[in-house]
């Protein structure tokens, strides 16, 4: 509950800030996702049964999300002006980033529906589910940010 309130607060700040500085907010969200993946790895390593299918599936999903985040960051970097003040994309660039973000969300949702993952005891699943929810919310904010970016 505390965590959800804190995350909601952060997301509200993100949405409020995005109007004045989309490129910085985009970069912040990419860094947030990288941080959430790192937290997910910690949880998968320490809290999930070692060598279990649930641990392997979680790490594999986190790896896919991590790769996607790297691609998004590298792709978005092309559209941030040298002074970091403008974030303008071509229509094709915007579509490409939205497509990559969509695949990130699909990967996360697939893990949440995975049978091996669902078979974990609730207390083992709680922390990783919380991190996965943060990832989902951050991906959603990124989609909103990219949607709002001007195209050339």
């Amino acid at each position, binding site marked *: 509950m505390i965590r959800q309130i804190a995350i909601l607060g952060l997301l509200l700040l993100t949405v409020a800030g995005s109007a004045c500085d989309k490129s910085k907010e985009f970069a912040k969200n990419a860094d947030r996702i990288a941080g959430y993946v*790192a937290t997910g790895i910690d949880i998968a390593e320490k809290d999930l049964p070692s060598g279990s299918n649930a641990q392997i599936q979680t790490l594999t999903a986190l790896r896919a999300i991590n790769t996607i985040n790297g691609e998004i960051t*590298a792709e978005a970097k092309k559209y941030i002006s040298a002074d970091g003040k403008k974030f303008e994309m071509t229509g094709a660039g915007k579509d490409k980033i939205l497509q990559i973000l969509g695949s990130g969300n699909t990967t996360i949702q697939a893990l949440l529906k995975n049978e091996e993952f669902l078979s974990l005891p609730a207390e083992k699943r709680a922390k990783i589910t919380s991190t996965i929810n943060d990832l989902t919310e951050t991906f959603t904010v990124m989609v909103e940010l990219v949607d709002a970016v001007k195209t050339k």
Partner: protein
Amino acid sequence: MNFAELPATITGLILLVMKELLKEKQRSGMSIDELVESALKQTTANEDRIKELLEAVQQDMR
């Protein structure tokens, strides 16, 4: 839900929130370039750790 593990789960969640709030404070003082570099650096570190963990699991299975 195993209630015996509930305090540890709650403590774990509070620690996660504190860690994220601290990181968030650091982010607010960073430039765009620093944020992008931080994201890419963390992404590379994440990939290395996942690779290492999955390899360790595979070795245990053999």
